[in-house]
């Protein structure tokens, strides 16, 4: 070091490939934590799902766990029930949360008075914990407290005063709507972020052409925020097939009534830890996680191949 410092360098120093130590220092902590706590456990879980406990010893059994999961009465029925419920959960979000979120975003993008206040208010449920949200709605829908009844009676809708969370036929739908209510702030903000980036000239040109609000939305806003629609759909998909907290907080790990609101997350929890009716099995739990991963990957793949390709065609 010293000698090279003392020597006046006439010519540009020959390019020696020095080992970029600072690069390693900068990258190592993040990559290490991320790999050890996230990537490795996911891979380890997948590996575990190919093993089973034979006389208390971990043994490689190949895809036997998956066969058991998909084929045997004991596991397949809850799994397909959870898959179906999860799908319904997702569809409700796609049909209610995202369109309403888009509508709210469009309304907020009109820059009326008090917009930041409305934005904050609508986003409030999103920052609350699901435990609180779940319990609050449980209280409101609770026939004993009667908030629901006193809201419906003035509207002469007494017929709607049902135990929404207690009926097997309505529990899942009600929970989906609670989740929509809580999470709507996220698509709204994402859509809003995309909307405010649309150049003002486009609106002016449209106004000169005499376009109404609806035409502006259909011809200008919607096409320009299509990429965001894609991102929001993927986020909704991943979030929903990974959901657990709300159902657990409201209905417990048994996802009652009678498993009507059981989704993959709660099934995973029960299979892994065991819960009242069954003993926990880490290997089968890992297999359920494997199925969840597969579902999410297939969804991502469909998005990347289908939607993304169409998007690039549109922008071209």
């Amino acid at each position, binding site marked *: 070091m010293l000698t090279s410092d003392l020597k006046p360098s006439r010519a540009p120093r020959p390019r020696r490939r020095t080992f970029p130590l600072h690069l390693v220092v900068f990258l190592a902590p993040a990559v290490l934590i991320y790999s050890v706590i996230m990537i490795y456990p996911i891979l380890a879980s997948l590996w575990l799902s190919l093993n089973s406990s034979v006389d208390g010893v971990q043994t490689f059994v190949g895809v036997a766990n998956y066969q058991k999961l998909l084929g045997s009465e004991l596991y397949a029925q809850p799994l397909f029930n959870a898959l179906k419920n999860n799908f319904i959960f997702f569809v409700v979000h796609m049909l209610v949360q995202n369109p309403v979120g888009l509508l709210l975003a469009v309304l907020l993008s009109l820059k009326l008075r008090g917009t930041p206040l409305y934005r904050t208010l609508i986003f409030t449920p999103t920052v609350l914990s699901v435990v609180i949200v779940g319990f609050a709605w449980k209280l409101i829908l609770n026939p004993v407290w009667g908030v629901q009844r006193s809201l419906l009676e003035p509207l002469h809708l007494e017929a709607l005063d049902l135990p929404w969370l207690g009926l097997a036929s309505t529990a899942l739908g009600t929970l989906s709507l609670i989740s929509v209510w809580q999470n709507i702030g996220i698509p709204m903000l994402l859509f809003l*972020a995309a909307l405010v980036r649309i150049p003002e000239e486009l609106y002016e040109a449209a106004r000169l052409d005499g376009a109404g609000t609806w035409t502006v939305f259909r011809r200008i806003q919607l096409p320009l925020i299509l990429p965001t629609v894609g991102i929001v759909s993927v986020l909704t998909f991943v979030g929903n097939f990974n959901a*657990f907290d709300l159902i657990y907080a409201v209905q417990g790990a048994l996802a009652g009534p009678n498993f009507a609101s059981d989704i993959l997350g709660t099934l995973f929890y029960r299979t892994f830890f065991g819960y009242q009716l069954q003993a926990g099995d880490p290997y089968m739990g890992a297999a359920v996680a494997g199925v969840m*991963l597969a579902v999410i990957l297939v969804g991502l793949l469909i998005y990347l191949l289908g939607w993304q390709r169409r998007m690039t065609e549109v922008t071209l």
Partner: protein
Amino acid sequence: MIYSLIAVFPTVLIIMNSFKNRATIFAHPFALPTSETFTLDGYKTLTESANFPLYFLNSLTVTLGSLALILLVSSMAAFALSEYTFRLNTLLALYLSIGIMVPIRLGTVGILDLMVKFHLVNTLWALILVYTAQGIPLAVFILSSFMRGVPRDLKEAARIDGASEYRIYGLILPLIRPALGAVTAISMVPIWNDLWFPLILAPGEQTKTIVLGASAFLGQFVNDYNAVLAALTLAIVPVVLLYAVFSRQLVSGITSGALK
């Protein structure tokens, strides 16, 4: 704008009723507390019967610890990824962004094994590490897109003045303060509100977070509506305050994160 009413109605209802006596909660759920019906009974039960202050402290420790680690570690990685071109650069960025789409929960079985091996179960460290890992992908993504926006000249000038690479990293940090704020706001809410990992990694009485504590408490005192409503109010107020402080950054963070 009626929708914002729907959005806040349940929250207001809970906070309002937590200050009323039991009879009025049921008889007039929508009435504001008056001098006759005002009571702090619920809060009294709470302070006497549960470890709420401890849970609160646990949540705070975990959230602040994870946020500090996420910010430090991710900003360093983001700096390296955005500043230098090297082999593996793109590959590494891609590797780090897997975590944005694949939820860390799927590795729960493996994480629990790992934590058992390291004797970290029922410690707050387990949670801090998991949340840090969970937060890194998005944080690196957002921070590196901001860091690319810092003018090159600035860094070159510093290099000519003989600043080391570490010094340049230190110079950049204050410049991307808004981005750091955005990452804080985005990472904070899921960490504070998580139920899954506290339930699995730290269910012990000493390490419960407020969310887990509240959920256990709600199950136990389900009929003491005063206490339940008070517990809910206590769990609501801090997040909403934090959110009010960070909401501007949250919006800017989501904007820049979403815009690809």
